[in-house]
């Protein structure tokens, strides 16, 4: 229920509290870098949902995998093949991410009119999926408590501070190296411009997602392998 309520409240409150004011934003339109003025409310409406969804996805990814550890070991002993086990766990996580993203997009649609809806939705999904996998990695590496600290800190610094179009017209240099860079550039471009010009950012985002997913699978493999299977 919280996965549904949190994005709804975030998007609606962001809409309610932002004053109308013009802000300059650096965008790519038709292959050229342009600086355009946008209403702050419009920017905030379009960018609040991914921040909320990313934090939720990181927490969901982390706890879904941590809580599944003992179950995984029992299922592996019972004969489940590791790839099938991993795929089913990742599918559950993907479902949670899809649900939270879909709800946040539905609410966003009520207050924000993206110029390219399918690409905007894909950008949101890319950010959410990336952070869900970040959560999967954080849990086993840092444990529950520190994992939560980081699952909060990384999306906040990345999406809330680094990628935020409200604070700067374009992300600072350090923010280009963060996992949310690709996805957030895609969704900003899709939300505010009529043509898609962020192919490079999309590829960066996908590279992050794939790289993190590979790392997560390598990390989870021992947990799903029947190491001490009785003969």
């Amino acid at each position, binding site marked *: 229920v919280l*996965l549904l309520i949190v994005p709804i409240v*975030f998007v609606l409150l962001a809409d*309610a509290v932002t004053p109308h004011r013009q802000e300059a934003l650096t965008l790519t339109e038709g292959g050229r870098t342009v600086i355009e003025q946008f209403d702050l409310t419009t920017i905030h409406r379009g960018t609040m949902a991914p921040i909320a969804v990313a934090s939720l996805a990181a927490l969901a990814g982390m706890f879904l995998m941590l809580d599944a550890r003992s179950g995984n070991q029992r299922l592996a002993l019972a004969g489940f093949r590791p790839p099938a086990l991993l795929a089913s766990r990742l599918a559950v996580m993907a479902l949670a991410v899809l649900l939270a993203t879909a709800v946040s997009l539905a609410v966003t649609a009520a207050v924000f009119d993206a110029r390219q809806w399918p690409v905007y939705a894909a950008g949101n999904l890319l950010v959410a999926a990336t952070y869900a996998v970040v959560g999967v990695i954080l849990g086993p590496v840092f444990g529950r408590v520190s994992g939560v600290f980081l699952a*909060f800190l990384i999306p906040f610094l990345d999406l809330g501070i680094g990628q935020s179009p*409200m604070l700067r017209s374009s992300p600072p240099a350090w923010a280009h190296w963060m996992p949310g860079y690709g996805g957030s550039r895609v969704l900003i471009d899709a939300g505010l411009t009529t043509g898609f010009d962020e192919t490079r950012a999309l590829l960066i985002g996908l590279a992050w997602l794939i790289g993190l997913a590979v790392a997560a699978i390598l990390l989870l493999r021992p947990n799903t392998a029947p190491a001490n299977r009785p003969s």
Partner: protein
Amino acid sequence: MSTDTLFVRRFLTDYARNPVNLLFLVLVPVVFVVVAAGSMADAAKLLGGPGGPAVETATAGWAAGFLAGIAMYFQTAGSHDADRRLTQAGLAPGRLVTARLLTGLILAATAAAAALLALAARTGIDQPARVAAGTLMFAVIYLAIGALVGALVRNPVNGTVLILFVWILDVFFGPALGSADRLATRALPRTSSRSGWPMCPPGTAAESATWAGRCSGPSARPRSAGRWSPPPAAASPSRRDEADPVRSATSSVPACGCGCERPAATRCCGCCSSSCRSCSCCWPTRSRHTGRKH
């Protein structure tokens, strides 16, 4: 060594069993304050809030609060079974709760100290005692939230999301990061008003009454005020007014009690003394200390 101290030490040992927990309890607030404080102040200005050093100072409290809440959540939610066994073995529930809360308090104080050190290194602290008290109050409030959520919500996804949810509502939609007197967020918790660098908005009498209890701590009171002063509408002209002919001439308009030295129509904000309609908060009291103009 008393049993309580022994339990507190054992609970702390349990927390530090994963040394990364201790490291991040210190590291996360430091990174948060160093990286986010300036951006949060900019965001506050954009959203119609006060911005500036007040928000940067509040960042230390936000960081300490979140960490304290999460640490206490796991202290409570992760120890239900052990606590039940301890009480079955004869430990009085009151002593157990005290030990758990003391453990949480030590963790909260650690996070607050780290955040304050980062703040001191980053921007300096004008009024260390007041800011330290405010930051610790943030941590203690979120400690209570963490304990409450931990007692009621055992599923860690739901528990941590709930704490994150409360925290984000408090930070992003509270008075610090936006206009203090907008209708949409008047009902939200206003932790920043406890912080000792008050941002309490002017409000209705009912609002004032609601938040007065939260803000009535000594750290929320401007130092210059010394003691609570009545709402200016009811206040008599001050001695300074009597000595100053210009102020005396305007003393028919009640003076703002917040220290901004403007004769203005005022309303009591219910948090410390009163605030000026033209400055919307008690910030001028602080500006008088620091010499800044608002």
